[in-house]
């Protein structure tokens, strides 16, 4: 850990060449954008001026409707993560602990995991209706696979000594899970939850763009249908910032930043 201290304890100067280059790239992109918006080379409003996007961003962030829809999407993603995450952890522990079950069922999870989950949306609508429940169900389905696979892989990497310690204390299954498996698998679980969060978010938002009357996905597709491009850009910017931030937060809470450096 002393190494970690040395690595992180010497921050780069505020105006390092890297910072300057980053600033130059950002300014360059913004300048090109502004030039294109006034050039008339592209269809009108496809590239709106930065001022229009800024105004739309301000309007969006000061409007109660946006926060209501953000709340709806956050709740849907939260439920999806909770249900899919718990089911994924349970399935992962089961597969990780039992070699036979892993050989029998893990290939299905492995190959089903990367298939496009949005194609299940028509089925979810039939099962759960057009309300938020079908979005939660799609998010749950999306989130289940990465969590289950990550936990199953993490389970197999647990130090055998820890498991033997648990058995030598005559721990029952529940105690083994709570005292040995889960603490030893903190990082794979957080990694899985991180991946799960990303795909649950995408699943929920795509479902909202397809069929809904509330949520951020609905607002995005509404902005598209009335061709309010500055508003659409503003929403995409906020959404990207929120999703990247949420991803980084989950990683930081789980201490993933510390794994990379040790």
């Amino acid at each position: 850990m002393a190494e970690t201290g040395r690595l992180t304890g010497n921050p780069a100067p505020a105006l390092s060449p890297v910072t300057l280059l980053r600033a130059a790239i950002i300014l360059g992109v913004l300048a090109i954008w502004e030039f294109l918006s006034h050039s008339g080379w592209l269809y009108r409003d496809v590239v709106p001026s930065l001022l229009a996007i800024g105004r739309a961003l301000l309007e969006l962030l000061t409007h109660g409707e946006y926060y209501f829809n953000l709340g709806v999407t956050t709740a849907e993603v939260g439920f999806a993560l909770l249900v899919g995450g718990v089911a994924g952890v349970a399935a992962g522990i089961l597969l990780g602990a039992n070699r036979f079950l892993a050989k029998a069922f893990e290939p299905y999870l492995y190959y089903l995991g990367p298939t496009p989950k949005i194609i299940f949306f028509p089925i979810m609508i039939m099962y759960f209706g057009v309300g938020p429940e079908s979005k939660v169900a799609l998010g749950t389905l999306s989130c289940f696979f990465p969590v289950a696979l990550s936990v199953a892989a993490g389970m197999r990497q647990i130090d055998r000594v820890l498991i033997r310690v648990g058995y030598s204390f005559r721990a029952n299954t529940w105690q083994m899970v709570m005292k040995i498996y889960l603490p030893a698998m903190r990082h794979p679980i957080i990694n899985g939850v991180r991946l799960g969060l990303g795909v649950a978010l995408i699943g929920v938002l795509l479902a909202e763009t397809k069929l809904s009357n509330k949520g951020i996905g609905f607002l995005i597709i509404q902005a598209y249908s009335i061709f309010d491009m500055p508003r659409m850009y503003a929403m995409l910017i906020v959404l990207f910032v929120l999703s990247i931030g949420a991803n980084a937060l989950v990683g930081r809470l789980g201490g993933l930043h510390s794994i990379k450096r040790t």
Partner: protein
Amino acid sequence: MTAATARRSRSPLPAATGIGALVAFFATMEVLVQSGMVNRFIVPPPSEIFGSFGRVIVEEHVFGRFLQTLTECLTAGVMLTVFGVAGGVLMHRFKLLQQACETWVAALASAPIVLMYPLFLVIYGRSAWTIIMMGFFAALPPVILKTIEGISGTRKVLINVGRSFNLTPSQQFWKILFPSALPTIFVGIRLGLIFALINIVGVEFLINYGGLGQLINDLAERYDLAGTYAAICFVILVSVLFFMALEKVERWLRPVD
């Protein structure tokens, strides 16, 4: 590995259990639906789903749709390979650029890029290019990151061999760095193609245009339940075969691992 362990690991019992569980699941669903315990207007009986495979394949021109999705995926794949590998090489060549932009590319890899599809619809219209560009942009970050990783991971001894032969920077790249990084670059291309396929089928479904994704949307809107389920099974089958084929190519490229 002992002989007993080797025998156990090759035993067909686990695979048979998996298949058996799947068959048991379908049989249970069939009984539940036929007995009326599960509403057949929500879940069609599996026998009806399997029976509709032939109809969907013939009447809905599945082969043509499959070719359309494959063409979109391969077009995105070619663009990914060209721009992703070139981007990675460029970032490796100019260290300052790499230090400035690598975290941005990594952040983009976790961003929901597919949600930009309404924007792409505005730019490219409701056409195959919207789908291709969506697949391309969503899959670009892993190709760039894996290219950088592959080139940076070239063993020092290989680089020193190149130096001892007084190779020019261009020769050093084409004779040493690139061949050494090729397996890792292919991992990136494989990941990119998987991301591209997921996004392409997803966007086809969402904008109701193109190949296999549109087929599901079409059948669902016609409330052809058995057909919808059959089409979903077909898309899953195609995706799984696509991933397996990519894995085989990757294993062929890096036999040592």
